[in-house]
């Protein structure tokens, strides 16, 4: 009878999978670093000085990340190679989705660490008492504006908001020079950007609200909508679409241009708004914070140490083409140094207070 056949099939399937299931988590495939360690104890390596090295760390480390998994996985793998006793569990989602979870879980803390794509969220969560202070030794080396005065969060890397373009579709003389050119009807239907759930986009709107005021920001967003900009859930879609020639222009963080160039696409990049009287380049920082009530504070602190260490910062610079905040860590070849640009100056603490207004604006305009 067929159902006997099925039940036995299912049973076998279940058995097979039980057999395949590793009793312990799959060890990361970074054999070189792991193999160099003489034994399993935490031997300090040549990483920048950390405070917790003498303490043996182990157990589960739960990381909530607003950064997408491919961008954060390399540094987690490197950390696991250093600390094989720590089982790192990652939950990645959109910034605000994770932030909501952290607020919801205040009385029942699950996460040890929060990694974010922009500072407004950490700032706002920090004001709500979601984090506990921790100041790694390397904090003194970072630019002071990227370390929370109360040490509730610490910045990791900088990213610039740029316009990438498909070189087959845009002639050099037609290139836009400002984000306001994106509302020009000649680009109608030819632009891709990330939508309202994306942290970097939210941060850009928050920054513009502060620099230009509500009205001008609204006019710009309305201009994008009128210009039939296609809004994707994330920037990977945007870069791939521009690389494939689906769109002429894409509003992205600068490293998406590099990642797409790596795939052999014909793409170029514009660092916008550099002229006199223009806005300047909008940047946003990624940051990390230790959650109040974290179950594994030693491991969380060790992970923060690792992120701001030379080794951790190098991974962000090398693999993600980001701007490391730790001075002295070289940029990946081809990345244009931020010093050569005029940056828009945003008061992060102030903009964080207005985060509700940013959401209101996006909702009012029905930004996808």
């Amino acid at each position: 009878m067929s159902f006997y056949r099925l039940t036995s099939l299912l049973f076998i399937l279940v058995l097979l999978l039980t057999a395949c299931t590793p009793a312990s988590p799959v060890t990361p495939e970074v054999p070189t670093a792991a193999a160099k360690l003489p034994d399993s104890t935490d031997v300090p390596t040549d990483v920048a000085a950390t405070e917790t090295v003498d303490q043996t760390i182990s157990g589960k480390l739960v990381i909530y990340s607003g950064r997408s998994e491919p961008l954060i996985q390399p540094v987690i793998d490197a950390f696991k190679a250093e600390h094989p006793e720590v089982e790192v569990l990652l939950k990645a989602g959109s910034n605000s989705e994770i932030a909501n979870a952290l607020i919801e879980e205040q009385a029942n803390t699950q996460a040890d660490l929060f990694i974010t794509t922009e500072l407004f969220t950490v700032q706002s969560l920090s004001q709500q008492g979601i984090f506990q202070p921790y100041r790694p030794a390397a904090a003194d080396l970072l630019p002071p504006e990227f370390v929370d005065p109360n040490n509730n969060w610490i910045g990791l890397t900088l990213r610039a908001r740029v316009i990438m373009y498909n070189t087959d579709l845009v002639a050099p003389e037609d290139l836009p020079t400002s984000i306001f050119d994106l509302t020009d009807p000649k680009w109608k239907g030819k632009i891709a950007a990330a939508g309202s759930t994306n942290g970097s986009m939210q941060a850009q709107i928050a920054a513009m609200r502060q620099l230009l005021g509500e009205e001008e920001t609204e006019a710009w967003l309305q201009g994008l909508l009128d210009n039939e900009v296609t809004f994707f859930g994330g920037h990977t879609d945007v870069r791939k679409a521009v690389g494939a020639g689906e769109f002429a222009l894409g509003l992205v963080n600068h490293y998406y241009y590099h990642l797409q160039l790596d795939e052999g696409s014909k793409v170029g990049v514009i660092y916008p708004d550099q002229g006199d009287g223009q806005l300047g380049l909008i940047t946003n920082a990624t940051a990390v914070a230790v959650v109040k009530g974290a179950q594994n504070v030693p491991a969380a602190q060790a992970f923060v140490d690792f992120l701001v260490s030379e080794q951790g910062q190098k991974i962000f610079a090398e693999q993600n083409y980001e701007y490391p905040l730790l001075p002295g860590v070289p940029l990946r070849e081809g990345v244009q140094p931020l010093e050569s640009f005029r940056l828009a100056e945003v008061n992060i603490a102030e903009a964080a207070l207005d985060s509700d207004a940013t959401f209101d604006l996006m909702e009012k305009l029905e930004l996808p």
Partner: protein
Amino acid sequence: MNRSDAPMPPALVSPWQRLRAASNRLTTRSASPVLLAGLAGLVALFLAVPVVYIFLRAVGADAEAWQRLLQVRLWKLLGNTLLLMLAVTGGALVIGASMAWLTERSDLPGRKYFRWMFALPLAIPAYIGGIVHLALLRPRGGMLPRLLENLLGQPVYTPSPLGFWGAAFILILFTFPYVYLLSGAAFRSQHASLEEAARMLGYRPLRTFFSVTLPAMRPGLLAGALLVALDILAEYGTVALLRYETFSSAIFVQLSGRYDRSAAAVLSGVLVGLAVIILWAELHSQGQARFTQMESSWRPAPIVRLGKWRIPALLVAAGVTFTSLLVPVGVLTTWSIQAVLDPETLRSVLHSGSMGFSNFAWNSLWTSFLAALLAITLSVPVALFSVRHPSRVSRLIARVCQVGYAIPGVVIALSLVLLVNRALPFLYATPLIVVIAYVLRHVPQAVRASEAALNQVSATLEEAARVSGRTAVQAFVQVTFPLILPGLLAGGALVFLTSLKELPATLLLRPAGFDTLAVRVWVWANDGFYVQAAPAALLLVLISAVPLSFLLRREQIFK
């Protein structure tokens, strides 16, 4: 029980024997129903808690949240959702019923194979089908437009899979099998004399079809249509992927947007209200689905010869199969082979997530399996109570147990997050909460399967067992249970299948480091890594095909 039950002169019956006879009557007629009613009531209570909670949250949300939503969003979402629901239901009805007619009532070549081909898309979650069709058809960048451009030397307009039409197209492709199966069964069981009578009255074939054949199938079609409608209300992955905003996707965005749950609760309340109306209609239509059959003279309706229409009909059937089954499976297979052949991609496939590939495949299996087991266990008392002790109370309980159909995954997730985190914090952020979500959502399927199975076992068998000295529990375990086991397994297979495919609740409820196949496919595809997503998607489809083919073999048209 024993001889004391036999009629004997009153004088010879001892008081003791009389007492035993009375107590026996009590246990058969009332004691066990009380216990059963209690159990069934508890199950209903458990299932109703999340939906009641969401309603209370929605009603209790501050006026400002309601006002903000009422201004524009609510109406727009309502319009969007209803429009999609109508379009997909209509499309699925047309395709499902016409394909069923072709395989059951016509001489379509290869109809034996087409039966399987039309039912198997149920193994493919709609969002996975959507991912494949999006990669193929997306304007300018899709594989098809680019191929055409290379061939013809200039860009060619191809329809976009994005937005309303795309979402409707994809959802029709992956929901029409519901209608196909139900109307196939209806065509199969239709009486030959029905149409013969119409023809004798001088009706032309077409008129016969529209005024006799189709109306006779109304119960089956209606049931299929309402199932599709409920499915569309709950659908998250496809509409989010194809960027068409409905209630489900708007709730998801609310949850990941501003730091405010009340708007999400309001939207959920409205969505559940809408779904409850449809569910009510569906339950109502089930009552009408029993049509009279003239058992003695039944013979199958004759097969219609397609004649010159054979080839066009074959092409249409092949086109439906091609887009809903062959293309998704083919593309996923190709991508999977690409992923396996490229060492770097393979590495990222095997070691992504916190735990690696085998771990999240395993998570998919055990959570769905446990959910199926729990759902079946919970369904048995409800089904026993409603089938063996029909009353107003038992019917009410059985109806309440259907409520899971009307709570979309996002809403279950929202209510569990709010509820469990406050009331049962130790359960929060464990894989068990994911299992609970599956059970809440899928118990209705198990209840229906158990009821159907029990309906086929005559109560006289149990009574015979009782008469020969078994207790109620013994009678159930030794007589009823073995007989209904195949039916229970079918219910379990259905719960297992739908839990495997579940996406939004898993996405929102999973603890850190806990991934399932569906979640991994979604995470990868959302980041645009289709090749990486393919092996997990293909495995998900293949695993789903196992319980599905078991279920299909039980269907009348596959016997």
